[in-house]
């Protein structure tokens, strides 16, 4: 029974959660939302050649990322994890630089932030998470790896191979599928045989959890449970957060060609930021004054990041050559010289 039927229609509740946690969730989701809006604007202004929006997926991303410990865990993202990055503490000017096409993997320090490089190969980074997690187990450390991927990515062979490896090796890894119901123009029913990625977990002998991806608290709780299990030697978990891709696939996309935008209305009304705010008010976890302050701060931070990325210097062409190897080669040095003589001038 997919959660959009069971709880998808209604409100969410956060009464059982610590108020501090819900405030943090709200702050990060709100900031991500504002930054997303700024990014779309930057794309329209021609500062970004393209952008992939996370609008509507803030609960799935922030809810999960806040269940991790940035001091010992490690995240393996796709290209659509801006809100996760933000919540995990990644330096966001460096993160957004990828959308200005300044550097493919982003300009934040991957090892410092323990948040892997932005990765455009659908499914490709998922086995990395398993390797990282295995490395943790081999050393006797207790970090947990988080692999983010989409419903479309679940079709790739790499995701299967990774889940099977994780099961066999009992690796502390969380396979976090944001099922936003679309892989570019292809809807779930023509993508995911059987209809559920979480349901696949059983076939690998690991727990599979289906969670309302627009309920930040529910996502956080489900992820925290999986993290706890993995940290204590309980092995991998598949989490499927059911949500919706409100915006086009990217700013280059034209969803009018393949979906009825009226259908997105339902999901627009289930806006995770709005839902969380209402639930917090309801639970007495925050009042209007709190939200006014947080909203203002979120807007300010989003503007700061926006200005930072818009003003960031373009990388120097020498960087083409300096990062290929740790120990460069004579041939590459020769090519670098050619570049200096024939291109740089």
């Amino acid at each position, binding site marked *: 029974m997919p959660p959009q039927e069971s709880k998808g229609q209604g409100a969410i509740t956060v009464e059982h959660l610590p108020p501090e946690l819900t405030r943090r969730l709200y702050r990060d989701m709100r900031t991500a939302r504002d930054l997303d809006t700024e990014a779309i604007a930057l794309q329209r202004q021609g500062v970004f050649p393209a952008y992939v929006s996370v609008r509507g997926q803030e609960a799935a991303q922030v809810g999960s990322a806040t269940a991790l410990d940035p001091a010992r865990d490690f995240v393996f993202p796709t290209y659509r994890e801006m809100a996760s990055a933000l919540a995990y503490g990644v330096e966001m000017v460096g993160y957004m630089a990828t959308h200005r096409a300044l550097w493919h993997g982003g300009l934040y320090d991957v090892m410092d932030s323990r948040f892997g490089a932005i990765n455009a190969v*659908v499914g490709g980074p998922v086995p990395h998470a398993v390797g990282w997690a295995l490395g943790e187990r081999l050393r006797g450390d207790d970090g947990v790896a988080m692999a983010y991927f989409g419903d479309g990515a679940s079709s790739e062979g790499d995701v299967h191979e990774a889940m099977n490896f994780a099961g066999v090796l009992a690796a502390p890894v969380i396979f976090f599928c944001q099922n936003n119901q679309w892989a570019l123009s292809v809807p779930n029913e023509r993508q995911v045989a059987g209809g559920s990625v979480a349901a696949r977990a059983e076939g690998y002998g690991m727990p599979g959890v289906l969670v309302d991806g627009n309920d930040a608290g529910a996502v956080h709780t489900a992820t925290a449970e999986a993290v706890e299990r993995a940290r204590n030697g309980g092995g991998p978990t598949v989490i499927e957060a059911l949500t919706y891709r409100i915006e086009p696939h990217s700013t280059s996309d034209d969803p009018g060609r393949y979906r009825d935008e009226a259908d997105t209305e339902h999901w627009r009304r289930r806006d995770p930021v709005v839902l969380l705010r209402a639930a917090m008010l309801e639970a007495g976890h925050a009042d209007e004054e709190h939200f006014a302050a947080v909203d203002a701060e979120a807007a300010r931070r989003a503007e700061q990041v926006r200005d930072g990325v818009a003003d960031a210097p373009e990388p120097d062409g020498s960087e083409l050559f300096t990062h290929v190897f740790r120990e460069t080669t004579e041939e590459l040095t020769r*090519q670098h010289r050619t570049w200096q003589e024939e291109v740089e001038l």
Partner: protein
Amino acid sequence: MTELIERADTTVESAVVELSMQQAINRALRVLLTEDPDVLVFGEDVGALGGVFRVTDGLQKEFGDQRVFDTPLAESAIMGMAVGLAMNGWRPVPELQFDGFAYPAVDQIVNQVARMNYRTRGAAPMPITLRLPSFGGIQAPEHHGESLEALFAHTPGLKVVAPSDPAEAYSLLLQSVRSDDPVVYMEPKARYWDRRPVRLSEPTDPIGTSRIVRPGRHATLVAWGAMVHRCVQVAELAAEDGVELEVLDLRWLKPIDAAGLAASVARTKRAVVVHEAPLTAGLGAEVAALITENCFRELAAPVQRVTGFDVPYPAGPLEPQYLPTIDRVLLAVQRTLEY
């Protein structure tokens, strides 16, 4: 642009129409789907969306979702499925969405598609045409600007072609899909939107022939895909200085037109090969080796190679610094003339 495609009569092949390459390919697919009920077009997002470059725009509507259909997101299975369809008598025309996402399908392409006819001693031919948006120049995200021609050309059992303009794209696709051998058809993304008045014509030149795009006598520029246009620009500039460059569009990257290359360079005595892929072990090495083997006594200078650098394809502002520039090609021309 959809309108234009809808209006044009696909049976009047010789009409001159103004089309972009993306429209010309669309047109060729319509001809193929119409003439041969065994032709199937499939891949990621090729159906309702019409592909990310709109190359398959309108085809699902016109031919139905049994002939033109979306697959789940898995490149290896797309090519593997093509093998099985071919064994069941179909003529598959799969698309892989971007060059960089052909890598997950390399096993199926190299170990299966390219070898099934050989493995079965001719019993199970593979009339598969893989459409692969290729090469760079559009400042796209990572993995969206790769040049895989060296890998494919090195693979026995594959034929490889890269058109350089709309008319070429049209006739080469007809030829590729009608061929009973597997063909990798590499579409230069950077040229998709370049509109030209073109005469859409049936293929006449045999598979494996190159073409002279612009004749000249001081040196031969060899290129394919988007670099053909760049070489023509170079030739125009050089002409202002009285240097007459011949531009040879290799177009078939396997089999390579060794005779055509030799005929041109035997006349010009000098050659520069230009490609987007990295230098080392790129197809330019093969072109240089072929020219040198066949024109050793005529060559006045070693074949120059102007290529991408031996670095992973870069992002945005660095892309024009990675790709062969007009200046770099001109400098190579100068080097060969002054050798």
